[in-house]
């Protein structure tokens, strides 16, 4: 199981800005190891964001997203106290879900 995500969700007016830092190696599949062999790609493929359990955004990422990915987006109609959930799944089948409260 990967390390937890850091999620900040701040309400401003009738929307909330969500900032997420995930902990993932995001190996590109382009690099070579000491013996000249290509290190296989290992990256987050699917990201799902929920607001109070309802899916509001899904994303698909390739290996070109940076190591320890950062994501920022805005949810309309979110208010303080709402629960924002983020789930990612990588191409090796590992996944991680974390939740934060909008403040």
């Amino acid at each position: 199981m990967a390390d937890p995500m850091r999620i900040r969700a701040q309400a401003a007016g009738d929307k909330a800005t969500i900032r997420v830092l995930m902990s993932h190696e995001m190996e590109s599949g382009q690099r070579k190891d000491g013996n000249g062999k290509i290190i296989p790609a290992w990256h987050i493929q699917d990201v799902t964001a929920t607001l109070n359990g309802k899916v509001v955004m899904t994303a698909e990422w390739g290996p070109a997203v940076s190591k320890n990915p950062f994501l920022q987006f805005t949810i309309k109609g979110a208010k303080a106290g709402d629960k924002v959930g983020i789930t990612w799944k990588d191409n090796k089948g590992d996944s991680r879900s974390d939740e934060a409260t909008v403040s």
Partner: protein
Amino acid sequence: MQTRRETLKHSAAVAGLLASTGLFPQYAQAFDKAAFDAKSVAEAVKAMGGAAPVESKDVTITGPDIAENGAVVPLGVSTSLTNVKRMLLLVEKNPSALIAMFNITPDVEANFATRSKMGQSSDVYAVAITNDGKAFFAKKEVKVTLGGCGG
């Protein structure tokens, strides 16, 4: 909000290898390998179900003019268009052009920021695909001092 039926129909329409995640059966997703393997901007947009992209002032891409470290280039995509279903972020000269794809529901703003790797100086593209399959783009040149793809 997409229903499962719509999502599945949509996935079936997109040619390529489909692999359901199984994590969210009610929102079955399929990682679109064909799109992420695409080498050019036009190919990737086509694989994502958009027509030939047209440049538009309603789509915005934000990023640095010069990125010192190609491993971490902060890029943002946004659009003022309504009825947008997907936003794509692409780097033209990367080994595979497509960086990230965001599916938009009415509950989120079409405004995303993330960080990407860039192998060399290149044009970066934000593409918005509308519900009726039209694609609009904006581009920006980012110069990279130190590439971030190889090693």
